[in-house]
């Protein structure tokens, strides 16, 4: 088929027929030694200019499907493959990723490993140079894509000076510079704050509408992108379980897999309202139709008085500066904060607001340049739990009684002989937390503060619910060790730095919002997460009521209004 026909949209942007695939790695083999199939008889077609959302739990095959569409599977990863994959009339199983790059762009989760040049301009220009385009064409294409993604001011910057959001945009620009007909994105917002994440999704929608680029986007936080999608494909155990419009997908997920439902859909479902909304705008329209466009404001509950206990973490006028070679930057600027035992606190704010620095400062990794910081024992789990795992047996990581006690706290005492690499993602995270806890417990008492830095990256909702349960246990100081002689009774203050507002609404009772190194809001979770736009839950944006942030709270208000 001619290039013109492809450009006019005669050929599908992506056509997958009967695709089955198994990775070659031993870690993906079953107990009987046979390779587990990452994809099982997948058939899918994406039309030119279509925006398709790929949903599914972790390890359901989303990433593998994207890699098959850009040629990394099987050309780069190897493995066994059957079926047919055509990308804008290229045979993806015959052509390599380099040849497919003219027709398809790919953006992965971690922008750090997606840049290979020193400066932004060189990075964006690289695919065109490799393709052999003339210098004038390259210059024009770089300029145009930079303008489209609003990054011309970054062209002369070094890539290692960019923020995560900027780096993700640069990687997107490099994927788009050859004007592909299809762009594949694998959880591109998982490391971005809500502002940058929303910006990226709407940027994709604009490219989709104005450039006619077909989009295939894999995401866990569906509420963020469902409204932008034309169609949803849900995957389950390597196969397609659903393929249809977003509104139909919500009905399907409600009946088949509630973990894939969005907060607004759960709100409507709990309140007995139909149809289930695909976004905030849709939900508001439906509510207007039912005559409850402005539900009554419920009385605002005051933040309860501080617990009558001594703070376990106290920061007064805390300044921390970070030295980045030639630049010294004040990352925390006079922070005042107190945490008390049993508090569940979400630390939120944009990328670079100082959340991680505050936690790292509390754990002693950064020395303050001014102010007072008083903290009891603290266990900090950083953003990459794998960094804590250096041995090949769980019991070797955590020897002795203190290790066993820590394993019991996280519920992994049964896995003492397992290889950490064989554990699931959630179990590895728990093991890393146990490593941070070990020896910091007084007897079998928890440390004063347990801090988690961005623990939900790449997590599906089911795993987030497990994490919420663990946080509640830690903050409740409840009976982790019921089968041992002593019991943990002292609750820990749990502080979690997160971009995930829905997760914060699920676990936190208090939210501290940081902006440019200062505390810009500190109050009850319901108050903070219902009083804004970016740092607000989907339910809060639908109902716009103070302290109504979860589907359960919203449904209670709606049921009352509906009588």
């Amino acid at each position, binding site marked *: 088929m001619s290039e013109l026909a492809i450009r006019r949209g005669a050929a599908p942007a992506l056509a997958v027929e009967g695709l089955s695939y198994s990775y070659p790695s031993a870690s993906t083999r079953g107990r009987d030694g046979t390779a587990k199939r990452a994809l099982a008889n997948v058939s899918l077609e994406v039309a030119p200019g279509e925006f398709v959302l790929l949903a599914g739990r972790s390890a359901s095959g989303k990433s593998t499907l994207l890699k098959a569409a850009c040629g990394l599977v099987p050309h780069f990863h190897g493995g066994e493959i059957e079926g047919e994959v055509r990308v804008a009339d290229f045979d993806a199983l015959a052509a390599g990723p380099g040849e497919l790059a003219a027709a398809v762009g790919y953006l992965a989760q971690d922008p750090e490993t997606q840049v290979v040049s020193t400066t932004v301009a060189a990075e964006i220009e690289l695919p065109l140079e*490799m393709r052999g385009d003339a210098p004038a064409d390259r210059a024009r294409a770089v300029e145009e894509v930079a303008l489209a993604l609003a990054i011309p001011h970054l062209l002369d910057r070094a890539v290692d000076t960019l923020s995560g959001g900027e780096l993700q945009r640069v990687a997107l620009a490099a994927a788009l510079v050859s004007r592909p007909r299809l762009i594949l994105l694998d959880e591109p917002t998982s490391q971005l704050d809500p502002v940058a994440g929303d910006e990226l999704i709407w940027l994709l929608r604009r490219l989709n509408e104005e450039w006619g680029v077909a989009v295939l986007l894999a995401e866990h936080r569906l509420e963020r992108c469902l409204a932008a999608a034309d169609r949803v494909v849900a995957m389950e155990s390597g196969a397609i379980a659903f393929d249809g419009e977003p509104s139909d997908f919500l009905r399907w997920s409600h009946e088949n897999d509630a973990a894939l439902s969005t907060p607004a859909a759960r709100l409507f479902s709990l309140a007995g309202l139909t149809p289930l909304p695909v976004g905030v705008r849709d939900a508001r329209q439906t509510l207007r139709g039912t005559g409850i466009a402005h539900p009554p404001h419920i009385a605002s509950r005051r933040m309860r008085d501080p617990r009558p206990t001594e703070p376990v973490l106290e920061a007064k006028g805390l300044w921390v500066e970070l030295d980045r070679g030639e630049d010294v930057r004040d990352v925390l600027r006079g922070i005042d904060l107190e945490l008390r035992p049993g508090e569940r606190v979400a630390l939120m704010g944009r990328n670079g607001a100082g959340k991680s620095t505050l936690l790292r400062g509390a754990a002693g990794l950064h020395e303050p340049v001014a102010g007072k910081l008083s903290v009891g024992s603290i266990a900090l789990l*950083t953003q990459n739990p794998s960094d804590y795992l250096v041995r090949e047996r769980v019991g070797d990581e955590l020897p002795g009684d203190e290790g066993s006690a820590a394993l019991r706290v996280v519920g992994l005492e049964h896995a003492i002989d397992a290889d950490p690499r064989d554990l699931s993602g959630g179990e590895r995270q728990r093991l890393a937390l146990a490593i941070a806890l070990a020896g910091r417990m007084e007897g079998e008492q928890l440390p004063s503060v347990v801090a988690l830095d961005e623990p939900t990256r790449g997590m599906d909702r089911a795993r987030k619910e497990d994490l919420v349960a663990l946080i509640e246990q830690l903050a409740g100081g409840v009976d982790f060790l019921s089968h041992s002689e002593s019991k943990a009774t002292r609750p820990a203050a749990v502080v979690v730095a997160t971009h995930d507002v829905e997760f914060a609404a699920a676990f936190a009772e208090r939210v501290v919002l940081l902006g440019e190194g200062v505390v810009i809001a500190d109050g009850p979770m319901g108050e903070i997460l219902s009083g804004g736009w970016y740092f607000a839950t989907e339910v809060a944006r639908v109902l716009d009521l103070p302290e109504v942030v979860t589907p359960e709270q919203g449904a209670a208000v709606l049921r009352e209004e509906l009588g």
Partner: protein
Amino acid sequence: MRSSFAYKPRRAPLQDASPGAAVAYLGAIVCVAFLYLNPLVLLAAGAAAALAGVLAGARAAVRAALKMGLSLALLVTVVNALATSRGETVVARLGDWPLLGRVDVTLEAIVAGLSYGLVAAVSIVAAAVYSACVDPDRVLRALRPLAGRSALTATLVSRLVPVAAADAARLRDAATLRGPGAAPVGKAPLARRLLAGSLDRAVDVAATLELRGYSLDTLRAGNRRRRSRYDRRSRYDRRFYAIAAVVLAAAIAGKLAGADDFQAYPTVDIGFGPATIAVAAVVALSGLAPLRRGPNRQIQPADGTKRLSRGDKSSRRRLGVDRSARRRGVARV
């Protein structure tokens, strides 16, 4: 944290110059250091390299390189003083040492060691200025038509080095954060973990290179050799080539005219004749080559964040930050 030696784009003559011009200029200074042992000329070459770096905005790189270079110069001086007993002016008699035998420290050995050390220090400062001011992408692009595979390897390495450094920093932090009851992290498990992580990273970077088309053998590959907008010739190229030529010519002519008048043994004899002074002056003045009218402009972050340089006291005052006062107020319980 970024290395002080990492390339940082700036709108300054040395950064704007093509890699060939920058290499010719800095290479000429290094050549002087290898041609001469006269301390005056070597000091002039060191001053030129440091001045060039400062004028190009690579203050941190120059500072770090001076620390390294002068430490190395000191080490060379000490070793030479202990290992060489030549020279007539004994400044210390240290008696009999194992392996070295009788050790007499002479002024001549100290001066000779200092001279060798200065050669190393000048080379280190010039290399640091090159590293901080010359865009490695442009160098690699220039090399790619000549040695494609080497350029690919260099690309991978140049990308993986900072990524591996960041990984190592994260692993060190995680090791620090392990509870006292967890097994301590020995160097071997940490190194194994870093190596495994680096391999994973290398696979990711290699996948990105595949997606960017690095493996393509396109028919229009000739275009790869043509300059892109970002490889443009600079209006400063002539300046750097001309100064490199002048420095080399002066150094060679001076050498022939006896400007490298230096003798360490048996007594120190350092020449300060007109030829030596002239060569030193030309070399030192060459450090002004990266000078431009008006201040150097560093490309600022777009997020509006104000980055303060260590010495920017006026900025700190504007922001109401008195660092020394804050330091006095630090307390950690």
